[in-house]
Every structure is written in C-alpha cells, then in structure tokens.
C-alpha cells in the first residue's frame, strides 16, 4: 500500500517536482505501449539525479517492501519494464550525462538514463572519429538497458551484442548497496572487466531484477575512413543465409551482417499497406535482403575487402550490388527505408525514421526474438513464417550474425492494432505459436522474454543453474523488491 508518507519521503530525496503518484503521470509507466503483453500498474514514478538518490529510494522501498522497476524508455518488445506488482518506477532520464570519453582506450562512461540519441549526438559533436554503434531501436531508448538486455547494434559482427560492449558497471543493488564491477571497481579507468571475477554478470540478462545500474562504461570504436554497404538479394531467405554464414567467417573488415526479409516493408510502411499481400513472396518479390557492411583504414585494403566480398557473393550467384545501386530498382518508399539504413546512402539512423513504429497503423508490435545457433537461422525463419502465414500475418524476419559469426539473433515480428482487444488476443496466440514452433530447434533462447515465456526457460535450465540464480538473487535483493514478476532472475 502506497501512502502519502512514502511519497513525501521520496520527495525529500529528489524534490517534489520529480516524484508523482498522479494517474496522468503514472499512466505512462503502466504499459509499454507497443506489445500485446498485459498492462501493469505504476504507483509512483520518480526521477533521481544521482546514484546516491537511487540508493535512498531503494532504502525507502526496502523499508516499506515496495517493488522497484528501473526504467529508461519502457519499450522493449517484452514488456520487461512494465511493473507487474505495482510500486515505484525509477525513471532514469535525469541521469543522462556522458561522464567521460577515453579515446585512448576507446570507451565512454555513461549514466543510467543516457539514450541512443544522447550518445550519438554527443559523439558526433565532441568525438567525431568514434562511434558506439547504432541500435535499430528508437533513439529514445536507453543505451544501458540495450547493453544489459543483449540488444545489438550495427557493429554486431565486430563487437557482438551490447552485453559484450560493457566494460564496467556501477549499480545500486536491491539491498541498497552501491557497487562497481570491472576495472572501475579499483581504479579511475573503465577499460574492461578483466582480470577480476566478472561480476557484470550480476546485471546482464537479469532484466532489472538485481539492481539499478547507475553508470556503465561501454566500448567505442573508431570510424574508419573507408566503408561500403552491400545489399545482395535472393528469392528466399534459405538461399541467402549460406552466403551470410560464409561471409561471417571471412573477416574482410565486416562490421555488420544483417538478414532482413521483405515482410518488414509492410510494417515500415515502405509499401502501400492496401496493396501488399500478407506474404510479399506471393507477388514474386524477393524475400531475402542481406546487408553487408565493411570498413577499412586504407583505400587499398578497402578495395581488396570489397573485391573479396563480391567474389563470395558471386559464388552464391547473388548480385553483389551496393545498397545504393540496389536501391535504384526498389519502389520509392522502400528506397527511403534502405536509404536510412546505411551511411553510404546518407543514413545510419534508427528505425522510427521510417515511420515504422505505428506498425501499419495499429501501433502494436511484438516479436519472438531469440539467440540461436547460426546453423538454425533459416530454419527459424521458416518455422515462424508458417505460423504467420497461417494467421494471415506478414512474416517479418530479422537476423544478425554476431561477434565474428559466433552466434546469431533471429526474430519474427508481428503487427497488430493495439486499440482492438480481439487483435491483441490474436497477436498473443500467434506469438505463443511462433515461440512453440521455434523450440523445435535446439539452442533457441528468447531474449527480453515476456512473463509467459520466462517459466519455459526456467523449467528448461538445469537445476543447479536455476538454484545458483535463485541464491544470487537472494543475496543481492533480499526483500525481492527489484522488478518482481519479471525475468529469469525474478520470482
């Protein structure tokens, strides 16, 4: 039960302006406003300005046994920042300072509320020769949540998921203690996690169930002067994937290898929704679009890399055209999409630029997004595609080969009208069926799983590991106040 006394106590920590239990304010935290997952309940929204203030909030929450949900944008396709048991949502947006950029060791130290827009804006202005990667999620989403939840960027082949970008973390545990992990725990440098016990694992993949991350060091990468983006197209995803797998093992300065199918075009309003079949393949349109990005330090190196990429494309009988050349054959709206995707066509901006977030004017979208063995990526698409077609939904597939091709992500998205309860029900049914279908493949593990999927993975995990997770959770969050009801680490 939230009392006025608790609100007053919180106000004394952050100031009256930055705490609210007004329904008009808390409404915007009770649901993520994209997914088909159920709504939750936010009793109090609060915006701290420092790690110390976060600590004070956590102390008050512990004293009163009130749930706490760390929050930056609240949209994540799994509704994992939706408060399932009410309580306090800690909106981190006031903590949006970029504290340090170390060009020598190539990292940036960020506060918990820094968004992708903040980071890109700052680097472009002050450190134009470095980049942090660009997520395809909206620019208002948080950098730190992306890294903690295994989000991936346009440097995925080079650097892996966001989790691999993490150099160190400062966090307030559920117990209220402030900790630092990585080199920053004993020095002023945030260069990495080695050689100490890697305690970043207490926060990565836990979905806010262990603490509130107040600072993070993340890797930056040099912007090299030569870059090319290729866009081979194949009739089917199955035809295109082998090319991408071969490229993933070829080096060649490849920083990003991405697989998209044409179903996305509908979601992104690249084609007129009234004139696109649920399955664009029926129209004879090619379904596979592969994005290959490569960069180099010298012109000679660049030419050699591009030549090798073209040779490999030719081996698979796929035209190794650049994005720019390939785009010329596209419908105008689709040109817009691809134009935004890569710097070589003037782009490199997040997805919402294409107007995609209204998901074909229904405003709802959710995926079954999973990490998967590279062996199974095409099978994953085909299994999810069958379900989509069965329900007259355009199959929208995206895959990315990561960290030098060691693994990949695969996800299938569906759109729905979030103002229509019947559509939401159907969307849930489709999502459950896709999830069930892809479990046929070994090694499929969903990331940012919504609550209904969490139990499946808990049951599947070997008992010793499950017990270890539970034991850790008890140590770092003894009163179980951190994002209860969510995530593998949750109850």
């Amino acid at each position, binding site marked *: 039960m939230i009392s006025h006394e608790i609100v007053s106590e919180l106000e004394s920590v952050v100031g009256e302006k930055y705490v609210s239990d007004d329904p008009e304010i808390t*409404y915007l*935290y009770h649901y993520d406003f*994209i997914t088909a997952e159920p709504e939750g309940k936010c009793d109090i929204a609060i915006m701290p300005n420092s790690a110390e203030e976060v600590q004070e909030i956590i102390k008050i929450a512990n004293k009163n046994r009130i749930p706490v949900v760390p929050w930056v944008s609240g949209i994540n396709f799994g509704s994992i920042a939706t408060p399932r048991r009410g309580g306090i949502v800690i909106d981190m947006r006031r903590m949006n300072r970029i504290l340090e950029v170390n060009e020598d060791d190539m990292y940036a130290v960020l506060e918990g509320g820094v968004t992708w827009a903040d980071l890109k*804006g700052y680097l472009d202005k002050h450190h134009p020769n470095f980049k942090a990667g660009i997520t395809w999620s909206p620019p*208002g989403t948080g950098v730190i949540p992306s890294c903690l939840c295994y989000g991936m960027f346009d440097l995925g082949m080079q650097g892996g998921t966001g989790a691999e970008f993490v150099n160190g973390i400062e966090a307030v545990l559920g117990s209220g203690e402030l900790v630092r992990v990585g080199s920053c725990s004993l020095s002023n440098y945030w260069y990495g996690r080695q050689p100490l016990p890697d305690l970043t694992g207490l926060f990565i993949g836990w979905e806010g169930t262990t603490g509130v991350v107040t600072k993070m060091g993340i890797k930056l990468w040099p912007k090299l002067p030569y870059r090319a983006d290729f866009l081979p197209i194949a009739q089917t995803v199955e035809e295109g994937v082998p090319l991408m797998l071969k490229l993933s093992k070829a080096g060649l300065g490849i920083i990003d290898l991405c697989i998209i199918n044409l179903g996305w075009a509908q979601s992104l309003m690249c084609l007129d929704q009234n004139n696109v079949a649920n399955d664009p393949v029926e129209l004879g349109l090619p379904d596979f679009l592969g994005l290959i990005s490569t960069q180099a330090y010298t012109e000679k190196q660049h030419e050699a890399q591009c030549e090798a990429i073209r040779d490999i494309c030719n081996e698979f009988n796929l035209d190794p055209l650049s994005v720019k050349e390939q785009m010329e054959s596209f419908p105008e709206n689709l040109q817009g999409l691809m134009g935004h995707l890569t710097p070589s066509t003037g782009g490199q901006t997040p997805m919402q630029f294409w*107007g995609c977030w*209204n998901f074909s*004017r229904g405003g709802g979208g959710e995926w079954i997004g999973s990490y998967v063995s590279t062996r199974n990526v095409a099978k994953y698409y085909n299994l999810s595609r069958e379900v989509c077609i069965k329900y007259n939904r355009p199959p929208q597939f995206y895959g990315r080969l990561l960290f030098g091709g060691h693994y990949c992500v695969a996800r299938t998205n569906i759109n729905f*009208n979030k103002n229509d309860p019947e559509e939401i029900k159907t969307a849930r049914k489709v999502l459950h069926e896709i999830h069930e279908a892809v479990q046929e493949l070994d090694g499929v593990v969903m990331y940012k799983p919504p609550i209904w999927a969490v139990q499946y993975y808990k049951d599947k995990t070997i008992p010793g590991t499950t017990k270890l997770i539970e034991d850790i959770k008890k140590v770092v969050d003894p009163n179980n106040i951190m994002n209860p009801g969510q995530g593998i680490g949750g109850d």
Partner: protein
Amino acid sequence: MEEINTVEKEPIEYLEGKGITKLTKVATQQKLDRNKNLDYYKDIFYQCGKCGTCRTAYHEEGWARICPSGEFGKFEAYYLGGKNLLAWAVSSETLKWTEKLANIFYQCSLCLACTQQCQIPEIHNFAGEWLMAMREDAVKLGFGPMPEQARYSEHVLKENNPYMEKHADRLNWLPSHIKQTPDAKLAYFVGCTSSYREQGIAIATAEILNSLQVDFKILEEEKCCSSPVYMTGQTEKAKEIAENNVKAYKDAGIEQIITSCAGCYRTWKDTYPNKFGLDHGIEITHLPEFLLKKLSSGELKINNNKTPMKITYHDPCHIGRHMGIYEQPRDVLRRIPGIELIEMDRNRQNAWCCGSGGGVRSAFNELSSFAANERIQEAKETTAEAIVSCCPFCLNQFKNNIKNNKIQALDLSELVKRVI
C-alpha cells in the same frame, strides 16, 4: 480500423554526403482534415509507441533535444509521445479529465518542434491539431484555460489586448512624423505586443513603409487578433473577436494587411479562414515577405552598412513551423552588407522555441524562462552579437531574459530600418 484513404506519394529527398537523410515528405499518409475535434483524430493517437523520436532533432549539425516542455517537465507526459497516449486514454475513457491533465496539456508552447521529428505521417502532420483539440475540450469541461490565461482573456474582451493596458492607449507609440493615407487599402496590423511592449518594431515598420512611399493606414479599431485567446483553447471567444476584426477591416475597405507580428500573421492568414471559416479575402503579408519582395524589385535600397555585425536568426514558431516561413527573413538578412548570419545548431524546423507562446509565458513562467535561457545560450555560443527574430513576442521574451548584455535582441524591422 476504418479503411485508410491514401494520398499521392510524395518524394523523399536525400541530403547527399551529409551523414543523414531528410524526409521532406512522408509517403502514404492517411488523408485527414485539420481543425477537427478530438474524436476525429482518435484513431491516430494509439499509433504512437512512445518511442521518443519526438524529443530529438536529427539533423546534420548533430542530434539535439528540441522539446522545451519535456526537457523542463521531464516526465514522459510532457513530451508529445506522452501527450498522444494521454489523448488516447482520454478519448477511450481510460483516464478522466482532471486539472492535472489540463495542466500537462497547457504546459506546452505549441511550438510543434516535436511533430517535425515524428515520422509517423499522421502524427507528423496533424499532432498540432489534437494538441489544440485537447485544450478546447479542457475549456469545455471547465479545466482550462489556466487562471492567468483566463485573466488576460477577459481583458482582451474588455480592452482588446492581453497586457492589461487600455485600448485608448493602443496608438500611443505612433510618432507624429508617420504619414498615413486615410483611404489606403493597405493596413499595417501592429498587434498588441508591438503596440504596448515592443514599440520599436511598430515605429520601424511604419517608417519603412513611409520610406517606401507605401500608402497605408493603421486602424483605430485595431484590436487583439485573438491569438492568445485561441491558443489557450478558447475557440468560441476567439472566433467572436475574429469576426469583429474581419468586419472592421472589411468595412474600412482593407484589401491587404501587412503585419510585423508572427502570431497575428498566423492567426489572420490561417486560423481565421481555416478554423473559424472566415473567408475574409484580405491578402495577409508578413513583414519579411514584403521586405524581400521590395528588395528584389529594387524599391527597397540598402545603404552601405559600414558596421559589421555578427547575428544569428531565431525562427519564430508561428511563422516557421506553423506557416513554413524559414528562408525569407534569412534572405533579407543576407542582403544587408556587413551582416554575417551564423546559424544556431537548432534552426528552421528544428529551432528551439523561445518559450513564450501557447499561453506558457503567462501561466508557466519558470518553463518559459527555462526555454528562453536555453535559446539565448545557444545564440551566444554562435559568437553572434545579436539574436534577430521577426516576432515581437520572441523579441520581448529574449529582452526580458538576456542578462549581462552579452548579446542583444533585435527585430528584423529594427535592423532593416537602420540600413535604409
């Protein structure tokens, strides 16, 4: 969902080599009308996914925050995304109207920088309509306008200005040397801010018109255009004022109005015909448009300005994002010898609002000053000696917030008057 009517595709334009792509026109959009009530737009609100795009400008000079309301209020509710979803909640009866809700919607200068960023076509083009419709509903339900806005609106109805001044003093600024032509078909519509607060603009404009030997007159019957009343959701009251204004100018045989006020320009040119249905047939011209025309024709001659001056130009929301006038004032400035125009990072569609419009300055002084100071700081960072605008309300806002005189604020009319 209802069947969607689409309009013709429009081209997407690329800025080659700039590292960004600019969508000049959004494709395949739902055909909607402007100036409708909340119910009309209700199927658009939930298309918003609260993605946060509306908070940031993505332009070649760098990415930067653009929403004064959100940056000041901080909570999601103060950004467009939050407002879209609150409008959805109200229209679907999930949330009830409250004073707090009204307060959120009024704590916004309606600068519409947010809409320029969102690439969901219907939100990009029409969000301004439902931000106004929410205010109209607030007024109907007794939650709006804000008390300070109600107070000045009452004064507008009594004394024809929102500055608590007497109507009888409206023309006190008018120097005796200004020559008017009693039977002129062209009127200079001075507006309340230039009449009572920024009289230098009124004098400069009148002197420019005299120097060009333009036959014009200023009507003694000139009254508030109704913008401060309309922008706070009091549509019926504003319409009544507008009807009286149109009658007065038509009765006086006016065929063209020149105004030096961005708000008056927008109201006469757009709100009167398109919102109030007042097809007045009077040609409405904003001073920079007029000046540019006269410069181009050679009728307006500029002296050899011997004093070099670095200036930056602030885009007023009412002529910029609301009416699409970005280049004419800049073109005028570029033609003045000695003037070096330096752009602020956030300019044109992405300009940061001065924080005075939409009733914000009267009702939310802290937010208003926050916005003004951010803009003044940005102007100073360009190393400009002056921030030039063509809106008396923006000018007055800057003058009231500039400290230490490290930069001065000027209106375009004042600058032009110096060099002709």
